[in-house]
């Protein structure tokens, strides 16, 4: 039990996420409990608007929780300074960089910011990390391209390379497969799988690719109405957690194949 406890990198205890409004708190999801171990690939799934992004924003410290606690490396997330957090947790967001004029190498280099001096000059070590981030995501050939010249699939790889350059034990991605074709969706998820197993990084991502996530992830976090479940994908299927995700009259989950089928 004790050795297992040490391996836990991200833990959520009775977490309630939502927004503070003048009329009272707007609760998006409550009693979210899970503990993610080092080196695990975790997929977060749920219907549109169920609060996946809100949960991720809370886990990355961009938004305060309404109740409950998040522990990163057994330390409360609230006790991290933004600078400390930057060396522990990197993110890949749905938004593209504001400056379309950035080149790929510049964007990836920006990931080194928590480690560089006050003018941001890169040391040899920084350059090595940047190079290996480019290699891991197969984006070396794009290094001198500008962001506005990239396809969605390339852009997503570059965004992941930037997070890798930040060199953190935990990476959180918000819908990294949106706007991609089936090949690139599989490519990105396989890349995440490879990174988790080879570099021992812990990766948490939200996605709508439930069937792909079932095949690839170590654990899944399923957000349903009023409840969230965290377990192995197989156990989640056995417990029928995917069945109630969407209205049954339109789409149905087949536990044997791990796929959704359209009701005709």
């Amino acid at each position, binding site marked *: 039990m004790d050795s297992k406890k040490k391996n836990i990198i991200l833990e959520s205890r009775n977490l309630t996420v939502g927004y503070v409004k003048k009329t009272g708190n707007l609760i998006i999801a409550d009693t979210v409990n899970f503990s993610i171990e080092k080196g695990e690939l975790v997929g977060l799934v749920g219907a549109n608007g169920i609060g996946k992004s809100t949960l991720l924003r809370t886990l*990355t410290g*961009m938004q305060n929780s309404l109740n409950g606690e998040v522990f990163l490396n057994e330390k409360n997330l609230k006790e991290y*300074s*933004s*600078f*400390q*957090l*930057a*060396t522990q*947790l*990197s*993110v890949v*967001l749905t*938004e593209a*960089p*504001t*400056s*379309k*004029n*950035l*080149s790929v*190498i*510049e*964007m990836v*280099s*920006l*990931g080194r*910011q*928590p480690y*560089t001096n*006050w*003018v*941001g*000059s*890169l040391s040899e070590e920084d350059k090595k990390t940047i190079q290996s981030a480019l290699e891991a995501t197969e984006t070396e050939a794009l290094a001198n391209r500008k962001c*506005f010249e990239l396809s969605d699939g390339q852009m997503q790889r570059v965004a992941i390379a*930037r997070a890798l350059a*930040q060199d953190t034990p935990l990476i959180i991605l918000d819908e990294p497969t949106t706007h991609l074709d089936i090949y690139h969706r599989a490519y990105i998820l396989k890349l995440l799988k490879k990174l988790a197993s080879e570099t021992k990084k812990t990766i948490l991502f939200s996605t709508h690719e439930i069937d792909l996530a079932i095949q690839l992830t170590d654990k899944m976090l399923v957000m349903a109405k009023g409840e969230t479940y965290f377990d192995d994908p197989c156990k989640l299927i056995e417990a029928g957690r995917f069945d109630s995700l969407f209205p049954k009259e339109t789409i149905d989950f087949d536990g044997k194949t791990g796929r959704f089928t359209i009701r005709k």
Partner: protein
Amino acid sequence: MQTSQTYRFHFLVLFLVLIAVFLVNLSMGSVSIPLDEIFSVFIGNGASKETWRYILMDYRLPKAITAMLAGGGLAISGLLMQTLFRNPLAGPFVLGLSSGASLGVAILILGASAFGGFFGTLLLSQWSLVIASALGSFLVLLAVLAVTFRIKDTMAILIIGLMFGSVTTAVVSVLSYFSNAEQLQQYIFWSFGSLGNQSWQGVFILVICFLAGLLLSIFSSKSLNALLLGENYAKSMGLHIKKTTFIIILATSILAGSITAFVGPIAFVGLAVPHLVRQFYKSSNHLVLMPAVLLCGALLMLVCDTLAQLPFSEFTLPINAITSLVGAPMVIWLLVRKRKLFF
């Protein structure tokens, strides 16, 4: 990220061109002064005509220095604002900064009778002009920023900037309605914009403000680079958004505010120069862009001033008109050629 070392040669060439234009600017005007005479004055030997020495040291030299500081400073503040507001259209003029400065100066000049005895010595009046103008632009920027925290749409922010601009203009009109002819004249001459008639004392104050603004800008360059990714990414890399935003705004209002106080509202330099530089420099690193923008801004302003003196004639055109005449076609040309305006 490419460092400024890669571009050292570029900067050297730009710097040499700047010096050449500087000398041409000094020698041209209603009275042309030969180059060797200029050098002779600089070394301390005096010129063959005493009037030349006088024109050079007491009029043209402070004017040329003011032009370079104004051009470079406005261009830098434009660069900072374009990154901060995530908008290629941002600039000291568009976001109402210059109108804010105008309001500050208008309240000072036109409302002077109300405050009474505000104009003491020459130094005090010049400092107070600078402070009023910087305060005015700082307040407008703060107001615009307060809105940015609420509204994420950058187009809305620009429109709000323009609205602030028209409100300040309206207040200035109301103030001028109630002020006497002498004060009004003083204000209107200021609002035409003029690089000339600067005392050495004024130039000294401008240099101090310029250096302060420049230092703050250089200090913010790493944060500015992070902001290119967007606020959320910048935050995730450990950036304190509020602190950074405050420093950047402080830098721009010191730069734009002090420059506007001395030379009046000058359009287009702040908007056009950063875009011009981005066409020629492939880097987005602010440590590369800043020196380039600084040199090009200074260069553009010197050229504009040389044109404004109308060589071989006795007329001098208002500098504001010339920067618009040169700047507006430049921005149009860039847009037509590139079909898009990135930042």
